């Protein structure tokens, strides 16, 4: 059946089987392979994308459920000027990734969190990121990276 939604600011229309997950639709129909599939049962968080502003496991959502939604994937977090974004640069500076397989899910989850709560404290960051699994880093550098990236998400206040 046909489904229409927006991915990274561009409208798309795809013909999908009703059982196709959003993750598989993004990866294999739209060839946005930056979103990774690690468990297909909603535990690992590698497939996290941002749907209408909320971090969502795209393996637990069907593509047809995305009708009319605005979706942002890891590819949509890249800056237009080709430089790393502050969040990406912070991950690099803190060595918050090794194999990089879980990284798209951490970036989308952290981006969704900091966009809403740029002042999230360490406990809050740990709580939110505890829904994503990483097998390489032991998480400590990821927490450091996300805390360090908060400043870039704070809106300039009145002087």
């Amino acid at each position, binding site marked *: 059946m046909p489904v229409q939604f927006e991915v990274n600011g561009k409208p798309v229309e795809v013909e999908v089987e009703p059982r196709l997950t959003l993750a598989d639709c993004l990866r294999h129909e739209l060839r946005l392979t930056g979103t990774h599939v690690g468990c297909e049962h909603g535990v690992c968080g590698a497939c996290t994308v941002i749907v209408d502003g909320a971090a969502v496991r795209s393996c637990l959502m069907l593509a047809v459920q995305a009708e009319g939604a605005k979706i942002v994937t890891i590819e949509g*977090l890249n800056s237009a000027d080709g430089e790393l974004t502050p969040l990406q640069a912070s991950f690099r500076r803190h*060595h918050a990734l090794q194999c*990089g*397989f879980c990284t798209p899910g951490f970036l989308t989850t952290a981006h969704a969190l900091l966009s809403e709560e740029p002042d999230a404290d360490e406990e809050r960051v740990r709580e939110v990121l505890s829904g994503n699994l990483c097998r390489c880093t032991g998480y400590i550098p990821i927490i450091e990276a996300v805390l360090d990236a908060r400043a870039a998400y704070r809106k300039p206040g009145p002087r």
Partner: protein
Amino acid sequence: MGARNVLVGSPVERLEDLRLLRGRGTFVDDLARENVLHAAVLRSPVAHGRLRAIDTKAALALPGVHAVITAADLGARVPNIPLRLIPLPEMLPFEQPVIAASKVRYVGEPVAVVLADSAALAEDALEVVRLDIEPLPAVTDRVAAAADKVLLFEEHGTNRAVTFTVRQGDAAAAFKEAPYVRRERFSVHRHTAVTLEPRGVLTEWDRAQGHLTIWGAAKVPFFNRQILARLMVLPESAISMIENDVGGGFGNRGEFYPEDFLIPFAARHVGRPVKWTEDRREHLIAANHARETDIEIEIACRKDGTILALRGHAYADMGAYVRTNGAVGPRNSAQFLAGPYHVPHLDIDVKLLVTNKTPVGTYRGPGRFEADFFRERLVDMAARDLGIDPVELRRRNFVAESEMPYAVAAVTPSGAETEFDSGDYRITLDRCLQEIGWSDKQRLQGKFVDGRYHGIAIGCFIEGGAAGPKETARLVLEPDGRIAVLVGSAGVGQGLETAFAQIAADALELPLERIAGVRHGSTTLLPEGYGSYHSRAVVMGGSAVLAAASAFKTALRDAAASRLGCDAAAVELVDGEARAGGRSVTLAALAEDGIAADGSFTNHHHTYAYGTHAAHVAVDPRTGHVALVDYAAVEDVGRIINPMMMRGQQIGAIVQGLGGTLLEHLVYDAEGQLLSGTLADYLLPTAGDFPSIRAVTLEEKPSPINPLGAKGAGEGGIVPVGGVIANAVAAALSSLGVEPRALPLSPPRLWRLIKEAQGRTARTA
């Protein structure tokens, strides 16, 4: 060429991050191929049985299904997967066939492969393949295996694959005369690596050229090409193994599994590209398990704590088959049971037994994690019995720096001989005590504070690395004057590209930007390569890069000399130019001459990094939960290439070890069904679990066996964790007399130990 040795030792930000952070990594499942068919593997639902018939008619009748491959399609003889490491003749009867033919021996064993237009259709078809399996009693533990009443391989007559033995001195006499002896039983449970990226294979068979291309190779692509060539009866030159981004290795990923034959075979069978990506449940029942070992261990000491002898009788549960590197863990647990201590008399054996469970292979620190748990627990118990400070007992028994190189007792039948290359084990011990604040924390030892018992403990370890025999590298001058680095080592996500770029740039005295990229792993890059295991990539590959860089500079000088009309000895390489007598030529100009140079490093010795970890835990007796209050790790790795990546290896390994100690458990029922087959049941650590870990890495004692002075350093972090945590829990619960003897220390298991201890106390009172 100007920039002198500034990169090695610096926290250089990683090159691979630039693609991985942008979602531009290329993992095997990201690849697409025209005309591809998708494979799904039908796996045995029973642990042990005779495979009488497979009815594929209904599956083949489904729309979109193109083929169902079973053992019958493989011809008269279904080949076995050969052993990669420690290929002893005793273990040959226990090799795994590439697909089950007459028997199934574990839940998850491949029985058939369906090829269809989509992965979903292939999975649909799995449900209508009818298996006729006559169930047999399942052998699910090593006791049942050793009884040899039910045999996995009837024709072989026993479930015992082999016994590894270590003998040194006269342990029997030492135990007879020793003033202090203690005997214990310990066990480490089945758990495993669980890489975040599931395994996958994409294959294309070019019928016209007779050439097979495999994407998704990892760890040891050249070796796996040898195996595949043999199994498919093709020359090695007819196979290209391509390594893409790899989502974690840890010993598990990249060994030759049944699917590494079945998918290429399927592609040739149907003449179309075939892709297979496992799901998580498949991963948990099909990829190697690890660690399941138990031991009866005995220590003999003088009254002053000098260790005289160790005796150990251990059993390793191998699962249903001996896989490519399955014997490494048990072999290591025998060879490294004494760890960093000088123990004059040893009498150790480890029996390898097959059971109806998923076969085992290596997992980071194979055998060493187990051995450290056994030994460090026993050392703490001995220290308490003897009234000696556990720190002092360890210090007293260390192999001394003056004894280096120190020969480790050999293991038979593998004949593996090795020696510790360098080290002063007191350095990391003292530094670790300082980092954790050992003396300050002693006031909390065993104390009950705000509902939790506190305990502090240490554990010491050695980490082996740098397996031989060889590694190769090539440097190529690109047309833009930059230099590409090609290497036989394999990337598993550890940061190989950055480490080798640092080494190459320093050797060439060029800034990092002049390195055009590091390409690794694939069999298309170099004539030979040896891959990444046993923490060998930096030492072996890095030393090969050094050799190639030296040859490359000679080639540059020679080419420049003929351009500049001077003697090669007169050519100076400065700032990316070749200069002589006031004239110069750029590297870009020299590239027209097609300059490349090869280098290799051959080595039959191992490196031994060493260290000490300390943990402070707080145990809640109401729940059995162990909170990690503080953790300090100190390791001397000889030479650090990139301190940021080094810290990443340490902390990552420690958290994996904490998972294996406190959370992760591959649980089987009496029928041989895996009960923890999802990530909701098999609990990996999360970001909230272990926030307080500090890792310190030292460069005190470089390795004398390689030009970098580096030691393998990717695995040490995991090795002592089980022992350290169990010792800290024992220290915390000493007033109750709780002695953890079996891992994991998951809340329900520890809670039961506490309840039993409280029951004992109540009865005596």
